[in-house]
């Protein structure tokens, strides 16, 4: 049972947004009741459109933002009982843009060894050796140790970011769009590297991405987020083969596979992503859903377990006796 390295129970995060001059502040529910479990060695992908709360959730998991309510556990310990150093030892981020996530005034060596310094590592004599080891692991030549980020290519910088994240051997790595800023040929190298490192070091990944081709390639489990809630969570194979929630289907349909015999898909989603300050009633997806039932606009759907995962959609709620299960 101890193989659950990360658990979120009913996590919410609300931001108070200025309503304008002399107007009261309004709540924005960025993350709204999320349950999530990641097992050791899994790759959980979090997908959804911008503004659905993916990054807010990632920040809470990194201990950078306290949840408004609900509980978060890392390695079985509630996150609020852990200090920043302990959290940093357990979970580390890799960010999207390696051009802005590395300090341009610091040498590669000092960027990579900074986590050791921060953790008060007892033995500075071994830092260079450990940096060399991790650089070899991520495929950076030793000679760049004294270089600066501006002297490296985008792929090399992302390798530096990965080396920095891994030097303290965290258990969980949160990859926020790890390859979005990279070219296709470099992207494949970084994806291969992340896969190799996972096997070699027994890492657990939480991958946040809007590139569903990348997600399908890497993930073992997928959670689809929409307006602060996880509307479907499933084993990656099941989700990509038979998506259940209409939103998951629309997302998967909008993936452009390089097949010249197919045209541009029509997702029927409509352009309007709802204003998160003024959430739709009932099921939040109903204004864009092509299969919406009359009661979708009034009653919020329950969480319906499905095999290994769950889906939040009235179409699959048998207890409602509607029998509207559509393919």
């Amino acid at each position: 049972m101890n193989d659950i390295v990360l658990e979120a129970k009913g996590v919410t995060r609300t931001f108070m947004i200025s309503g304008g001059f002399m107007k009261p502040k309004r709540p924005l529910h960025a993350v709204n009741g999320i349950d999530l479990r990641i097992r050791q060695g899994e790759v959980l992908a979090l997908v959804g459109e911008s503004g659905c709360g993916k990054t807010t959730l990632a920040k809470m998991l990194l201990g950078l933002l306290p949840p408004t309510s609900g509980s978060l556990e890392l390695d079985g310990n509630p996150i609020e009982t852990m200090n920043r150093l302990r959290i940093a030892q357990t979970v580390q981020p890799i960010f999207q843009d390696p051009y802005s996530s590395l300090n341009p005034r610091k040498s590669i060596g000092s960027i990579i060894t900074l986590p050791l310094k921060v953790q008060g590592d007892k033995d500075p004599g071994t830092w260079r050796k450990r940096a060399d080891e991790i650089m070899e692991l991520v495929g950076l030549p030793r000679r760049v140790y004294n270089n600066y980020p501006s002297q490296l290519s985008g792929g090399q910088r992302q390798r530096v970011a990965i080396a920095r994240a891994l030097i303290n051997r965290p258990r969980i790595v949160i990859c926020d769009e790890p390859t979005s800023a990279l070219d296709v040929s470099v992207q494949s190298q970084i994806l291969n590297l992340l896969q190799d490192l996972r096997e070699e070091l027994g890492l657990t990944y939480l991958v946040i991405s809007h590139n569903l081709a990348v997600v399908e390639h890497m993930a073992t489990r997928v959670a689809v987020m929409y307006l602060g809630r996880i509307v479907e969570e499933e084993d990656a194979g099941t989700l990509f083969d038979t998506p259940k929630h209409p939103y998951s289907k629309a997302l998967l349909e909008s993936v452009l596979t390089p097949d010249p015999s197919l045209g541009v898909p029509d997702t029927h989603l409509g352009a309007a992503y709802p204003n998160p300050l003024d959430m739709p009633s009932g099921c939040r997806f109903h204004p864009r859903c092509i299969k919406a039932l009359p009661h979708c606009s009034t009653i919020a759907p329950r969480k319906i377990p499905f095999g290994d995962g769950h889906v939040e959609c009235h179409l699959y709620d048998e207890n409602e006796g509607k029998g509207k299960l559509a393919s």
Partner: protein
Amino acid sequence: MPAHSESKRVLEVRRLNVEIPVPTGMLRPVQDVSLHVDRGETLCVVGESGCGKSLTSLAIMDLLPTKAKRTCDEMQLSGDNVFRIGERAMSDIRGDRMSMIFQEPMTSLNPAYTIGNQLAEALQRHRNVSKAQARERAIYLLEKVGITAAAGRLGQYPHQLSGGLRQRVMIAMALMCGPDLIIADEPTTALDVTIQAQILHLLADLQREFQMGMILITHDLGVVARIADRVAVMYAGQVVETGTAKQIFNAPQHPYTRGLLDCIPIPGKTKRGARLGAIPGIVPSLVGHMSGCHFASRCPQVHEACKTGNIDLLPTAQPGHLSRCLLTQGAGSAPRETEGAAS
């Protein structure tokens, strides 16, 4: 070239070069690029960052940085020369007969003006129309690009619109004067996948309806496959392969194109979690003159002959399919020969 197809040709560029002086010498980011687009046709220019695809489009629009110099044998828009015709004449053409859609709609719309203002400006600059007529055209086009309650939107500022809506406004702006040619530089890169599909759908529909030529510049091979009629693959300043979308994706000839296609995970084809292909090495520096094939340093099938001389973009066995590779050129033996070399 048969005479009747000449009339359909919207853009013809032959042997375009761009040179930019840098402290270490002469940077040559675009070398010997030839492109053509017909009416109602979509040409996708695809390549990785630094391959010169954006500079090519800026060179066509004559919007290069002042230090950059361009040369070419021929640059014609619907049969009229548009090369070195002077800034005044060029600005008459820009936004009128050819217009551009940029990647980041937030930075390319002026935040200080309403979108109605910016849309009308494009038309009033080029046509002798009244404000009311320009406004009418703006509403018509905003509705065309799928913006509801268009009249009400005209008074809004760019920051009041979402990314997808802004990009729609950009597209409407590019269409204001009914151009012959639209150049779209990464029009969907900053957008969500769901919105991306909608915008591409829209571009394809509009292009068919108005029978424009379109050059779409992107690094996303998925976008290319779905929307392109013809494709030009660029690497290190040169077009290395060009052909129809089917030719490029189903029978790629140049080792770079093949490498690129191996790099992307293809749902249904690539096994989940399997290793992806990679192109080892880095893009060569484009400062100074370079002999031989630009891809030679990274090519898995490199020969001695690849490293010297000038390698031209020449026909392969398939009509309309050109490749800048010694292995794929020559009398119809190309596919077998490259396969032998690959194994």
